[in-house]
């Protein structure tokens, strides 16, 4: 079973939910797909034992063969190649590695170079098989790092995925293929607005889902009304407490602080398992 934890709005508590869920169940694979700003390991504290590089194939033009016909730059949908009089320029950060330039080149002048855009780290803690992706600073494409991370999924295991905020490509890539998605929100106008967007995404992908309301009590009750109206199960409400904010700020997981939280996250996990198996 693959459970992903997403939110639309950033900072609502995705990482709190995903890490506590993992710690309460143990024996899971955990993937931090927020490769732009991964934070799960602040709470899981896995010792990183190894890493591998994620790279893209970038064209290198053999200038002895190239006659500057411009077919490649004309074909490239990403403007990653430009032909100027008697020269050709490659812009690696724009390239999506589609391979089109090589296909259209009549002179066979396109070779490929590897360009590292990030890494995947691996470690273990409390029975959790932990993986996180890290996009290099200055790189724009998170999706290839997320794809490489998702290739680590062991289908025989239960998997928990921490998803980046937002609703576009990195989010879709992270949650597609999940059996269940937990959407974390807060009871504020921003929280509700972005929850609606996230609901559109999971419905679009046909993934069963439920909602966790974090910082309950801080705003109004419109998120709950919305969930009721849309028939969306509210899995858990976490109250707004300075104590909880303080634990988070120091990197301490809720389940390690009190047995009640441990039980509560265990219950959510069983509930999801039941729903997925139907």
């Amino acid at each position: 079973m693959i459970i992903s934890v997403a939110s639309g709005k950033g900072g609502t508590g995705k990482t709190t939910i995903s890490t506590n869920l993992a710690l309460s169940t143990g024996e899971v694979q955990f993937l931090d797909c927020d490769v732009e700003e991964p934070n799960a390991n602040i709470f899981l504290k896995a010792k990183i034992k190894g890493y591998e590089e994620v790279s893209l194939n970038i064209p290198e033009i053999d200038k002895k063969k190239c006659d500057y016909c411009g077919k490649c730059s004309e074909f490239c949908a990403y403007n990653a190649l430009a032909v100027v009089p008697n020269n050709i320029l490659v812009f690696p950060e724009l390239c999506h590695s589609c391979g089109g330039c090589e296909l259209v080149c009549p002179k066979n002048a396109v070779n490929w170079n590897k360009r590292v855009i990030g890494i995947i780290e691996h470690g273990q803690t409390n029975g959790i098989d932990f993986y996180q992706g890290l996009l290099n600073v200055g790189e724009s494409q998170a999706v290839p790092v997320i794809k490489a991370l998702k290739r680590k999924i062991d289908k025989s295991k239960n998997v928990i995925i921490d998803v980046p905020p937002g609703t576009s490509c990195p989010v879709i890539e992270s949650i597609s293929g999940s059996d269940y998605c937990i959407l974390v929100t807060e009871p504020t106008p921003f929280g509700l607005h972005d929850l609606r967007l996230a609901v559109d995404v999971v419905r679009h992908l046909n993934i069963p889902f439920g909602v966790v309301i974090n910082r309950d009590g801080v705003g109004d009750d419109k998120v709950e009304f919305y969930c009721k109206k849309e028939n969306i199960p509210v899995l858990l409400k976490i109250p707004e407490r300075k104590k909880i904010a303080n634990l988070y700020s120091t990197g301490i997981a809720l389940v390690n602080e009190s047995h009640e939280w441990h039980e509560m996250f265990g219950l959510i996990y069983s509930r999801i398992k039941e729903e997925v198996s139907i």
Partner: protein
Amino acid sequence: MKQLTVISGKGGTGKTSITAAFASLAKNAVFADCDVDAADLHLIFKPEIKKTMGFHGLKVADIDKEKCIYCKKCFESCKFDAITKDIHLIKQSCEGCGVCAYVCPVDAIAMVERDSGFAYISDTRFGPMAHAVLNTAEEASGKLVTVVRENAKKLAEEKKKDLIVIDGPPGIGCPVIASLTGVDLVLVVTEPTLSGIHDLERILDVAHHFSIPAFVCINKYDINVDNTYKIEKFCNEKNIEVVGKLSYDTVITKAMINQKNIIEFSDGKLSREIREMWNKIQEMIRKT
């Protein structure tokens, strides 16, 4: 004309609430919501839309099943796993490169425009605003950010505004880079949590990578004063100014519920702290 981008690395640190507060303090500015994935600024600005423009992101493959001979060349050539073995297109994986259309021996694949969202130009009680929405499960948010920024620039020129304030997205990837390239200053909003600190370091590296001067605002600084001290020490070592330390106060949520920014809603301590911070920022903008 100067441009200021508000970003954070980590989501939910208060970018949008702080940007919204600036709207009551900036005298002659255009506002641009570049968090096109999950835009929220309009919930406070309540814009009156004056102009709507369709946004087309990257193209998408369209397979004509009547012409298709199931040779699987497209399936074999696609680097994005967007075509299945039985020649079914997974639309959200298609990055619009056109390789499938090129290799198809029977011209069964066409690359077509996709409706990816809308860009808007609006009037608000604070002045002109550029914003956008990206449709569900669409790509190319970076490209849409660029459209919003171009619209904001045009607005500023037309209305003779001397500042563009940009509300940026979380993260460090494509839409973030599109939100900050070429701007004069970056304000990074962080919070005194270990996650906040971790993400602050990465986003400051991004600003440095693109040679954009950055300064820092520590929001909710009093939820963990030890961590606040760590951030100040870190910034000091890096020679980055901390221009504001804002108190934790749920009044900011109450303002949001009332569709107002904090300056309009309250004259309390937090509003005063934001005013003071804005004065410093103004001074820095003047100096760039």
